[in-house]
């Protein structure tokens, strides 16, 4: 099996650079606005897109993404809108969904992945699904040839890194620090240590997320990781802009700035 995401990492590795991955929750700031902003991100230089499934109880997210998810849910975003966004964006860039587990369970594990695949998705990031609870998920993702992307943290033990990366495909999502999503002024030193520990147990690409927002931070992370994930910084631009057009312009600009720092020296 090879998804568009797998192909992307083969390409960026051969180019000796990291991939830039941009995140927005579906339906934020509006259904059409989200698709337009993600499109601008890709035009600006984002290599792959992570589409969030907004959820009522996002325990891994800081205030910025919480607020965006609330806006999106008030807009009436559900599975249909998430899949619509995936269909639109997967035509221009490798795309994955990121979702808490309950919406998947409610939708039906097999049906969910069948629809991700049919709509051009490469895979799904599942931040609160443990490997122990993944029986049906592993089976269905194998059937539907989609990437299973798990999140590991600085506190993850060597034994669990082996276990979790053994179940992972696409890339390993390395949380840069102990905490929730949101911009930080500096990248924690724990990020580089964690990436080194993951490298010791797997050849899979590794993308670093949580707290990455500036071109300097992207440049720093790109030196040792295969991917850099940016979410809250894009959302903040959309929240702070007076109009959607202005917000989309600023999103494109940030994507351009961030993508200039991906090359490894």
């Amino acid at each position, binding site marked *: 099996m090879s998804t568009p995401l797998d192909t992307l990492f083969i390409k960026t590795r051969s180019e000796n650079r990291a991939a830039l991955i941009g995140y927005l929750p579906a339906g934020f700031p509006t259904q059409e606005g989200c698709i337009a902003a993600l499109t601008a991100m890709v035009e600006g230089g984002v290599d792959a897109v992570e589409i969030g499934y907004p959820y009522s109880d996002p325990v891994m997210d800081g205030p910025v993404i919480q607020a965006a998810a609330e806006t999106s849910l008030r807009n009436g975003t559900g599975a249909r809108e998430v899949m619509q966004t995936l269909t639109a964006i997967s035509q221009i860039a490798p795309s994955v969904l990121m979702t808490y587990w309950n919406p998947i369970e*409610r939708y039906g594990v097999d049906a969910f992945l069948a629809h991700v695949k049919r709509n051009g998705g490469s895979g799904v990031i599942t931040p609160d699904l443990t490997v122990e609870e993944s029986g*049906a998920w592993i089976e269905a993702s194998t059937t539907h040839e989609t990437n299973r992307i798990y999140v590991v943290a600085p506190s993850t033990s060597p034994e669990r890194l082996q276990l979790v990366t053994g179940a992972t495909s696409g890339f390993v999502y390395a949380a840069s620090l102990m905490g*929730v999503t949101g911009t930080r002024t500096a990248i924690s030193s724990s990020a580089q240590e964690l990436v080194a520990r993951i490298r010791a147990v797997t050849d899979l690409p590794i993308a670093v997320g949580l707290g990455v927002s500036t071109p300097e931070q992207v440049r720093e992370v790109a030196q040792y990781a295969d991917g850099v994930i940016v979410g809250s910084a894009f959302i903040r631009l959309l929240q702070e802009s007076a109009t959607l057009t202005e917000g989309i312009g600023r999103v494109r600009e940030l994507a351009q700035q961030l993508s200039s720092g991906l090359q490894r020296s």
Partner: protein
Amino acid sequence: MDSNIIGHFGPYGGRFVPEALIGALDELALAHEVAAKDPIFQAELAELHKTYTGRPSIITEVKRFAECAGGARVFLKREDLNHTGSHKINNVLGQALLTKRMGKKRIIAETGAGQHGVASATAAALMGLECVVYMGEEDTKRQSLNVARMKLLGAEVVPVTQGSRTLKDAINEAMRDWVTNVETTHYLLGTVAGPHPFPTMVRDFHRIIGVEARQQMLDLLGRLPDVILACVGGGSNAIGIFHPFLDDKEVRLVGLEAGGSGLSTGLHAATISGGSPGVLHGTRSYVLQDENGQTIESHSISAGLDYPGVGPEHAYLHDIGRAEYRAITDVQAMEAFGLMCRTEGIIPAIETAHALAGAMQIGRELGPEAVLLINFSGRGDKDVQTAANYFGIPLQ
């Protein structure tokens, strides 16, 4: 679902949490397992319960109230007489001792009605731990007296302004704190929900209710009760009294959920009676949710039952038919609340009043031959303002 790993109750339970928390959950599960077999830990906890909590809690037969319950014999297990006024102290002292054993100096807790927050603040003061309590902003208004109690006890109370501003959002915020500070901090979860080991560990700390009650009923009557009743929000007091009776097949176990304005109105917190299987706050159980798997906000006059999830062991006991669950509306609970005050001189917590209303129904169904045992989980001091408003008693 892998049913071969620990922490499952049939298809329910398990762990649905960020990988960042797995280390802390494993550490906690191990600490609990070791402590459960350690006579020194058990002696320490027993001594605290005897000299601080005030255990064993007594049994009270309520003959005048029983007239409103079909004339059945009705007994109360008086957890309201524990220090801090509810069953919550049983679990809190146990977990606080474990916190010290794990070498952590800070506890965080969520609270709805404030009872668990007060109990946590109490244990933190007793054991010299730092304590932060997350409480939905809505609940800080409903339960301002308990907010003051927690502050007097030296805890920091953080009002949570996200989402529905009630218990579920307080849990979200506590989990975010925990993910960030897990190395120094223990999350002292107050009910039998959440990821493994919480449902098992919190149950084990509350089993003392049922263990005592079983012996007390045998001493009093020479027999076991026909029916045991308890209110169910997350379900900690209920599982505490149910669990030691699980093998006594002739004893009916009845959990009373918060029916709010009525199941048909959609405005309730009756998760088993009116919800469906799903995942919330790290465990698979029954959940109030919409067709997209989004949590639906719960509604109840009782802050302590106002939660859209329920402990996974209750989900399992329901599915296998060992326990039954009924919804009691706000109106039914407040009727029972008023009756208990006037017939027995005991002011119950509004949570507990749901169990009393259940006893009135079941007593009438079974008649005077029946023996009912109610877990009287908490006292009503904290609810005086709510009850006064409800009954139209002016506050000066």
